[in-house]
């Protein structure tokens, strides 16, 4: 099993969610986050006050996937989250040793 974490533009979230649903992925954890990578923030002035937006709003998706689905999900996110501009986000993959469904204590991929 692999854990996938994707940090994407908030504006692409609906498209990513729809695209994932189309390939049968419905379960995910979604968090509103702020941060920046190479895309630095910017400064906006309103009525003489300067607002520095150095941490940009992003959406973080987290899901644990069976190995055979990982590449497909990654491709789907790449296609649906990409705008080609700086700030499109990143995908991180890591191994997961075990998953347990609390309701019935199923384990492994069955618990996903």
């Amino acid at each position, binding site marked *: 099993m692999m854990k996938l974490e994707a940090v994407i*533009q*908030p*504006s692409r*979230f*609906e498209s990513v969610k729809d695209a994932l649903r189309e390939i049968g992925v419905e379960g995910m954890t979604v968090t*509103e*986050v*702020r941060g920046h990578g190479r895309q630095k923030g*910017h400064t*906006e*002035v*309103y*009525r*003489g006050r300067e*607002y520095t*937006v150095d941490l*940009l*709003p992003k959406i973080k998706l987290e899901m644990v996937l069976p190995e055979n689905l990982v590449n497909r999900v990654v491709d789907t996110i790449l296609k649906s989250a990409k*705008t080609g501009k700086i700030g499109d986000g990143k995908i991180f993959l890591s191994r997961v040793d075990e998953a347990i469904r609390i309701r019935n204590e199923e384990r492994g991929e069955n618990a996903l």
Partner: protein
Amino acid sequence: MTTAARPGWNAGVPPSKNMQESPTPLSVLGPQAEAERQKIRQSFELGTSARETLNALCELADHDVRQIFDDVLRVQNREAAGLCLIALGGYGRRMLFPYSDLDILFLFGSDKTEQEFRPLISEFSRTLWDLGFRVSSAGRTLEECKRIEEDNAEFHLALLDRRLLAGDSTLFEKLDEKVLPGSEKQARPFLLAQLHKLTRDRLTRYGNTIFHLEPNVKESPGGMRDYQATIWLRQLAEEKKGIGNITAAEEEMCSSATDFLSATRCFLHYNNGRNDNTLTYELQEAAAERALGIGDGVARTPSDWMRQYFRHARTLNRQLLRYLEQKAPVPLTLRQRLMNAARTSKIEAGDGKYFQVRDGLLEVVDLSALSDRAITYSLFAECARTGTPLSREAERSIGYVLIHPELPPKNTEMPWETLREILGSDYPGLALRPMQRLGLLMEVLPEFGLIDSLVVRDFYHRYTVDEHTLRTIEHLQELADSPDERGAHFVQLWKTAERRDLLILALLLHDVGKGMPVENHVTGSLAALDSAAKRLKLSPEEKTEIQALIEHHLDMSATVQRRDIFDPATVAGFAESVTNQERLQRLCLLTYADIHAVNPEALTPWKAEMLWQLFVATSNYFSRTLDRDRLHAHDEVSLLGRIKAFAGAGSTQEVERFLEGFPRRYLAVHSPEEIAAHFGLFRKLSEEPAQTQVAATRHGFALTVLTPDRPALFSTISGVLAGWGMNINKADAFANSAGIILDTFYFADLHRTLELNPGEITRFRKSLEDVLNGKGALETLLKGRVSATRGRSPKVAVETRINFDDSSSAHCTLLEIVTQDRPGLLHEMGSSLARLGCNIEVALIDTEGHKAIDVFYLTAQGKKLTAQKQELLREVLQGTLS
């Protein structure tokens, strides 16, 4: 349920010689109790009332408790002297729900008896547990009951519902007749204060509203705890026989509400198989199907049944709140006393004849006046204006008058002017809440009735549609005080928003379509606006503004969540749909409130920040693109007709000539009546080349000047205003294609010269016209005034910022200045611009406290300013402003 043998009782322990008969074994008692419970449940499901069901459950528990207690005594060969069992709380009141705990107090005569009875108590409790009863027990000696446990008010409150179950009756009598009356009397202030605190905390935990989509019928406001707390408040207030001056109709309503909620709670326990009191969507359907608590067996829709639920919950909640308000045991803090004094002084400025402020609440003085609805409405207007809530007693009096036909009402129709006053005040929610509870809001705005107590199932919303709507308004009014991190950005928007009445009316109607059989609720809400606008006789402009707000009420939220708000194209597209700055401000506030009122967690700091970013970007877009969008009067057929009609003179071609080329923003900041008045001045230009008009406004005066363009015009006008000691708060300057300048200055009359001497207005206008026509000298006017105001140090220091922007406009250079406001500032800046040969094409002048925020669209010899000129201007301005 287990039927295991009880060690030390029916297994291994020899029977006592005093025993007349063997105790009934658990293997028999258990199934008997279970069979009895099933019988009670079946009877309830066949229609037996909740009252009878609760009583039967209580009888069953009493029977088993007594039998087991007797059995344990016999097995252990004891007499009950020195020990008694007392039912407390709901059980004590004989309101035992199917899966509720049995609250039992073991009362001991002394410490010694407590020690002796300890094994017996533990055996007794275990046996009851094995029989399927959940026992929540406490043990106290008689001596201990004399003391008040300050960290356990709940216990003392539960003790108010005491009832002897079994054991030493003499001991119980001592407690009931000798010990507790004295200690309860002494502890009454403490208990009342604790009860208030516990109740307020509980109500706050549930958002102080009965209107939850899936309410908890025990704990939520309007639930059974409200009923219980009311009873305790009555008991502590020594009114065991009935609430003072409560009417028979109110008693009847409370009784029927208690029956309905009891039936609902029984139903939930049976269906959930445990003490779970959440009225979920699924169980709402099931309850509606069997017309639970209604008794006619006619199935209802879940929405209709929930309306019944909310009606009863409102009765219990209203009664509780009335008692909480009446019996406030805690002395007011100094801050509260000062607030109350401030409110009292505010109200005295209004109509003190019919109402007054007492303990920070509005009370009705002359009840007979309430049949005149105009007076009742003025009471709500006072609430909204002063921020003083209506007392529950005043609300009750209005309610009484409303339902009694022997008091025929006068002036029932609320005119738009009165409603507008309420909606546009600082605290509209304080008026709209009681108006809704009394049914008056639906009289004034029948469209609101479509969402009364309406449950719309939704994963995110926590409240009924009407509750959500009223919360949106309350979230806005809270911005005036000290909002949390999420609201900080929006405070200034709320404080400076013009025509808040339109925003609040839009909020009242924005979700009304959810109560209509339409596919998209926005369509329904717009239809509701049509009927409301007609009835309230809104002007076409007012209706258009509200219509736009309702139509676009989801757009800002959708843009924030689904578009890249840092992309200039997104901002430009959004700005195009919003059309102007004033609407943007209202739409932003509406969106803030709408998200906030979905549930307490819906507006995250993340979302609030995104919303603010979109507002700032769009607002800046508007102020930087002002000269792009200009009027082509020929295309504005309907506007031309309206201006002509208001003006009452002049041809369409003349109106066209006047309007042609003004920035479109001119239409957003002036009403058709004002534009018609400007047109009237335009027609008189041939008689006098400078036309002026002065009118009183809400915050001071407005000066309009219409004249052909000339050098230093803007600085000259602002100089005359400074010379007269007027402080300019806001101004705009527009030019049409023919080079006619229309400047409007909104100013505060600091020395009340014009306010106290109306004749001075004519002299002021003459002085201005003389200066403009070269007959008077501005310098003379300014000399004394400016020197008088120099040298005063500002209370708040504002850093000067000067910014040039060449990219936003095709023909002009934008100059944005933020600096410390002071008298004569605009004249000084305007003079510097004029000296360097800069022509002001458009100007937007604003102030925020001590800060002046100005935007000028400048040209020099018809072109943008060169880089050298910009640098020179920056230097000059920095010198002037420092």
